[in-house]
């Protein structure tokens, strides 16, 4: 029996050794997983496909995101990402109060469409007090007002081969010597047709501010914040996402973020 016992000192020494071994194990041995084309990473990314399929099966196409009471609006909507696009085109639109703004619906549609901000405001409106979840981890509750995207897609009569909406934005989120990189996003048609997916032009009973995406920001309430493109100008119906950006379906997706964004 005594053989199985250990002196306290030896125990502490061995524990310290085990502890420091654990710390050393971290460091940078796994930094290769940050390489977007590494096979191990690409294998792990399949878990995101599994998440997407599992949630699509579990969720139902119409299940609503929770809507909160007005008392839950306790602060302004925290702006993140681009807060002031600087392209001449956007600056000119902004100076003109967005009167020359047009929202285009293009791509795999029978009837390409174009709407002014006034026309969008005259369409049936929906207001929803929802929680905005940033991929960084924070949440913020606000009231969003806009017109649902689904009926607009119906007006455009999307072609059967259309599988995704690509959302093109005004904001040059990266400004480099080799030119600007514009924000873009995409979703499947389930998210596009979801009843809470609205082209929002109002935030907390005010006109949508520039910092939050004026004149129009798409809300996709069952996904994270980066799936809710600000400064939206064109909705393009497509069958394939690879021709856009670096081919991953969105600006942040091109940097290795998951495309679904529902988790």
């Amino acid at each position, binding site marked *: 029996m005594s053989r199985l016992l250990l002196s306290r000192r030896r125990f502490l020494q061995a524990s310290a050794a085990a502890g420091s071994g654990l710390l050393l194990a971290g460091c940078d041995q796994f930094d290769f997983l940050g390489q977007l084309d590494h096979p191990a990473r690409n294998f792990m990314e399949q878990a995101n496909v599994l998440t997407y399929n599992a949630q699509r099966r579990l969720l139902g196409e119409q299940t609503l995101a929770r809507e909160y009471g007005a008392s839950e609006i306790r602060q302004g909507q925290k702006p993140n990402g681009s807060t002031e696009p600087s392209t001449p085109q956007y600056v000119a639109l902004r100076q003109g109060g967005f009167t020359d703004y047009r929202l285009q619906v293009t791509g795999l549609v029978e009837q390409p469409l174009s709407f002014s901000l006034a026309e969008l405001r005259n369409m049936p409106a929906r207001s929803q007090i929802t929680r905005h979840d940033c991929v960084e981890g924070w949440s913020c509750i606000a009231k969003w007002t806009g017109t649902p995207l689904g009926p607009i897609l119906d007006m455009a009569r999307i072609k059967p081969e259309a599988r995704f909406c690509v959302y093109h934005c005004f904001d040059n989120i990266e400004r480099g010597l080799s030119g600007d990189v514009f924000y873009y996003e995409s979703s499947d048609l389930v998210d596009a047709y979801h009843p809470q997916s609205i082209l929002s032009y109002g935030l907390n009973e005010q006109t949508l501010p520039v910092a939050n995406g004026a004149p129009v920001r798409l809300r996709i309430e069952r996904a994270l914040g980066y799936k809710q493109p600000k400064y939206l100008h064109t909705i393009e119906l497509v069958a394939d996402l690879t021709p856009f950006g670096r081919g991953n379906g969105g600006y942040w997706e091109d940097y290795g973020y*998951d495309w679904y964004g529902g988790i």
Partner: protein
Amino acid sequence: MTEAADTQRRTARGPLVYRQSVATRVTHWVWAICLFFLLLSGLQIFNAHPALYIGQQSGFEFDNALLEIGAVRSGGELRGQTRIFGTSFDTTGMLGASGQADKPQLTAFPGAVTIPSYRDLGTGRVVHFFFGWVFLATMLAWFVASLVQGHLRRDIIPRGADLKAAPLDAVDHVRFRLHHNRSYGPLQKITYFVVLFVLFPLIVLTGLTMSPGLNASWPWLLDLFGGRQTARTIHFGTMVLLVLFFVVHIGMVIAAGPLNELRSMITGWYRISPANPKLEGDKP
């Protein structure tokens, strides 16, 4: 050495018993790998917004933060600062600011304990969700196998007698008087029960509560945990408890005889103390 003396020596060692089934051993090591990656990628994700709140949302214009880790400039140098329940602590070198004093790394948790070692939320999420799925699948496999094989009934679920014997067992542990019997001791049963039936499900459910997609289909999760941000806080707290469990677990393995313990978790065979009666199927 005479035959009698030899027998006596072997008897003094106690018999080898087959203690851990294949299911227990495989799930144990898969969990170990999963929890390693989940912890380090989870700290990477935490670093993207190193604050924990109570409620549905994060207070930017009001204060509902329990914990905040950041860097503050003090006397021309950057110091790491951690605020818990409104009290600030200087945590330079560990949290908020670490590494060399002239070029500190300004992340909440230092790169030594995150995957990747540099700031990369997207990769942290890929790693976290991959091992999250593996962890969940392993939990389900373990539960079914343990239920069928009687492992739950025999070794995991504490009975009244275990609860009564727990205080004395605790005293024995403090005195390093560890028992090596055929099945788990009272404290072992209680600990494994809490880890497997409380902490594991809790960390999975609070993780799922952070998914805006799942919030739509299972809104009761938000009510169960008191909001998405509270769930995030509980997720973090459960992680801390699991790290504590890990430290004690390794400590006990070392104290109880690391080779014997490791053998039992690799081959299934565990040497118990000689006081135990020998049964059929035991090895000398």
